[in-house]
C-alpha cells in the first residue's frame, strides 16, 4: 500500500511538471474537440498527431494521446445530446435518451449528467488501472513465448470477431494486417522481405502512413458532401458565472438520486469489458444501457429522456477507456485499434510495452496514471463551465473542416521522415481504405494485425525453437491451451454467425 502511494506521488510529480500538464491539456482539449465534431473521431486524430509525438519525450507523448482517447468520450456525448448525432461510436447509445432530453429543454441537465457520470466512470477505471496493472504485469512476467503467441492470437481474433459487424471479414482483415506488418527487414536473419528494392520499405511500412491513409484520407473521402451542417437548439449564451447557467443544469431531486447508482453500475460493466480484448467503450456503453433498461422499475421511460439511459452508458465508456490501458501497457496486447496505435507510438519511442514496462519505466507508467486524474478534472472544467465553446464549434461546416484535416494529415505524414514516399504510401492506403469501405471491410482489425504481426512471428519462432518444432506446445501448457481454446470457440461462433443471415447493423459511426 505504501508502495502504491509512493509510486502515485512520484507519478504526480511527473504529471504536474509544466510540460506534461501542457501536453495533457492539449490531449484532452483535442479529444473533446474532435469528440464533439461528427465526422472525425479519436482514431483519425490520434493518427494525425502521431507524427507530432515523435518530437516529444515518451511520457508526454503517451499522456497526450491518452488524453485524446478518453477526452473524446466526454465530447462525443455532447454531439449525441445536442444533435442526435454521435460524435464517437461509443456515445451512439447516448442519443437514445440524451436527444429526447434536449428536445424537452433539458439539454443542460443531460450535459451535467453525462459529465458527472463520465467523471465517476473514469475515476473507477483509473482506480482499477493503478490497482490491477502492476499485479497483471507480475503475472505477465511468468509468460513464455508460447503464452504470448496464444494471447496475441486470442486478442486479434476477439477484436476482429466481437466488435465488428462481419466476423469472418474481420478475421481476414487481421491476417492481411499481419501480412503487411511483415514487410521490411526480418529481425532474425536480416533478410529484406517484400521491399522490392525500395529503401524506405526496409524499416517496414510506416505505421503513420497506414493509419492516416486508412482512417484519415478514407474517412474524408467518405464524408465529403455527406456530413450536413446541423443546427443545435441549445443556447448557451448564458455565461458560466451566472446563476441561470447552473440552474439550467440542475437535474432536480429525483434525477439527482438516479445518477450515482446508475453510474456505478455502468462503471462496473465498462471496467470489465474495457480490460478484455476485443470489447471496448462502445460495447460497454450498449451493455450498460441494456442493463439499466432491464432493472428499471418503469422501463417505458427509456427512449423518452430517462437520465439513467445516459449516465450509465457514459460512465461505462469512460471506465472502459481507462481500463483498456491495463492489457495494453502490462501485456503489450492492445484490446482495440486505438490501443494498437498507442502501442505503436511507444514502440517507435523505443519503449516495449509489456510486463517489464512498470518496473523499467516507472516514470512513464505512474506519470500516465496520475495524468488520468488531472486530465479528467480538466475535462470536467472543459465540459461544464466552458460548454459554450463546444456548442459554437458544432457550427463549423464540414467544407471548411475537411481541407484542414487533409492539410494536417499530409504535413503530419511528411514531417515524420521528410519523405514524399511516406505521403504517397499514405494516399495509396487512403484509396485502399476507401475501397474496403465500399465493400464493407473494416480497417480497424487490419491495423491491429499490422501492429501485432511482427511480434507474433517472433514469439512463434521462439516458442517453436524451444519446443523443438512441436506445435503441441501451445496445447500442453495450460495457460496457452486456455487461450487457444477460447480462440477456437470465438472462431466457430464467427463462422456460425456468417452463415446466418446478415446482422442488422454494426456500430458504425466515425472512428
Amino acid at each position: 500500500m505504501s508502495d502504491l502511494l509512493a509510486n502515485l506521488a512520484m507519478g504526480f510529480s511527473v504529471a504536474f511538471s509544466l510540460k506534461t500538464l501542457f501536453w495533457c491539456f492539449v490531449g484532452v482539449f483535442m479529444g473533446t474537440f474532435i469528440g464533439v465534431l461528427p465526422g472525425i473521431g479519436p482514431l483519425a486524430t490520434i493518427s494525425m498527431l502521431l507524427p507530432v509525438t515523435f518530437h516529444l519525450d515518451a511520457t508526454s507523448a503517451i499522456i497526450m494521446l491518452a488524453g485524446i482517447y478518453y477526452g473524446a468520450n466526454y465530447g462525443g456525448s455532447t454531439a449525441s445530446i445536442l444533435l442526435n448525432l454521435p460524435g464517437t461510436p461509443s456515445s451512439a447509445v447516448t442519443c437514445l435518451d440524451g436527444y429526447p432530453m434536449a428536445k424537452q429543454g433539458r439539454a443542460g441537465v443531460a450535459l451535467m449528467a453525462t459529465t458527472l457520470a463520465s467523471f465517476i466512470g473514469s475515476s473507477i477505471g483509473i482506480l482499477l488501472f493503478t490497482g490491477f496493472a502492476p499485479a497483471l504485469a507480475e503475472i505477465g512476467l511468468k509468460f513464455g513465448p508460447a503464452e504470448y503467441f496464444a494471447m496475441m492470437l486470442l486478442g486479434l481474433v476477439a477484436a476482429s470477431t466481437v466488435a465488428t459487424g462481419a466476423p469472418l471479414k474481420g478475421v481476414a482483415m487481421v491476417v492481411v494486417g499481419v501480412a503487411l506488418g511483415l514487410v521490411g527487414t526480418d529481425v532474425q536473419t536480416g533478410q529484406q522481405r517484400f521491399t522490392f528494392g525500395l529503401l524506405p520499405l526496409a524499416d517496414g511500412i510506416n505505421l503513420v502512413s497506414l493509419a492516416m491513409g486508412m482512417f484519415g484520407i478514407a474517412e474524408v473521402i467518405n464524408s465529403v458532401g455527406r456530413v450536413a451542417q446541423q443546427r443545435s437548439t441549445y443556447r448557451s449564451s448564458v455565461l458560466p458565472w451566472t446563476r441561470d447557467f447552473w440552474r439550467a443544469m440542475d437535474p432536480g431531486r429525483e434525477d439527482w438520486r438516479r445518477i450515482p447508482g446508475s453510474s456505478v453500475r455502468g462503471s462496473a460493466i465498462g471496467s470489465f469489458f474495457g480490460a478484455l480484448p476485443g470489447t471496448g467503450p462502445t460495447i460497454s456503453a450498449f451493455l450498460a444501457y441494456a442493463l439499466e433498461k432491464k432493472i428499471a422499475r418503469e422501463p417505458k421511460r427509456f427512449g423518452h429522456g430517462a437520465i439513467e439511459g445516459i449516465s450509465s452508458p457514459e460512465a461505462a465508456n469512460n471506465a472502459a477507456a481507462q481500463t483498456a490501458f491495463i492489457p495494453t501497457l502490462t501485456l503489450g496486447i492492445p484490446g482495440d485499434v486505438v490501443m494498437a496505435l498507442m502501442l505503436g507510438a511507444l514502440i517507435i519511442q523505443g519503449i516495449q510495452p509489456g510486463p517489464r514496462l512498470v518496473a523499467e519505466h516507472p516514470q512513464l507508467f505512474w506519470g500516465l496514471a496520475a495524468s488520468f486524474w488531472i486530465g479528467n478534472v480538466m475535462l470536467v472544467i472543459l465540459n461544464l463551465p466552458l460548454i459554450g465553446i463546444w456548442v459554437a464549434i458544432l457550427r463549423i461546416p464540414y467544407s471548411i473542416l475537411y481541407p484542414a484535416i487533409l492539410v494536417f494529415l499530409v504535413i503530419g505524414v511528411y514531417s515524420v521522415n521528410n519523405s514524399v514516399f511516406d505521403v504517397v504510401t499514405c494516399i495509396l492506403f487512403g484509396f485502399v481504405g476507401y475501397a474496403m469501405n465500399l465493400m464493407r471491410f473494416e480497417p480497424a482489425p487490419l491495423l491491429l494485425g499490422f501492429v501485432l504481426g511482427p511480434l507474433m512471428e517472433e514469439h512463434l519462432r521462439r516458442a517453436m525453437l524451444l519446443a523443438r518444432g512441436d506445435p503441441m506446445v501451445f496445447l500442453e501448457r495450460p495457460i496457452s491451451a486456455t487461450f487457444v481454446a477460447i480462440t477456437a470457440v470465438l472462431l466457430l461462433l464467427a463462422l456460425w454467425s456468417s452463415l446466418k443471415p446478415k446482422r442488422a447493423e454494426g456500430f458504425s459511426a466515425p472512428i
Partner: protein
Amino acid sequence: MRRIDLGDVVGGLLLVAFGLWFGAYALEHYAYGTARRMGPGYFPAWVGFLVAGLGGVIALLGFLRAGDPIVIRLRPLIAVIAATGVFALTVERFGVVPAVVALVFVAALGESPYRLLRTTLLALGLAALAVVLFAWGLGIPFQPFRWNP
C-alpha cells in the same frame, strides 16, 4: 439474375489473389526452413495462404446471398486523392506553403458550389497555421518556400 453480395465477392476474390501472391512470393524468394528453425519465408507463406483461404470463403458466401448495393461517389474520391497527390508532387519542389495552398484549392473541388473567396482565405490561413504550428511550435525542420523544380 440472382442477387449476390457484390462487395463480399469482389473483396473475397481480391483477398484470394493477394494471399496467393503473397504466399507464393514468400516461398519462392525466402528460405522456408523447418518448424523448429523457421526461415524468413515460413510465417509469411502461411499468412498468405491463410488470407487466400479466408478470402475464398468470403467470396463463396457472398455468392449465396444478396448484399447492399455499392455506390461509388467519384467526385470526393478524385478530389481528395488529387489534392493529397498535388501536395506530394509540389512539397519538395516549391516548399510547404505553396503545397498547402494547392492542396486546399484542389480539395475544395470535392463539394459544390466552389466558393473561391472562402477557399482562398482558408488556404492562406492553413498555410500560415502550418508554418507557425509545425515549424515554429514543434521545431520540425521544413522549408516554407524553396525552388527546386
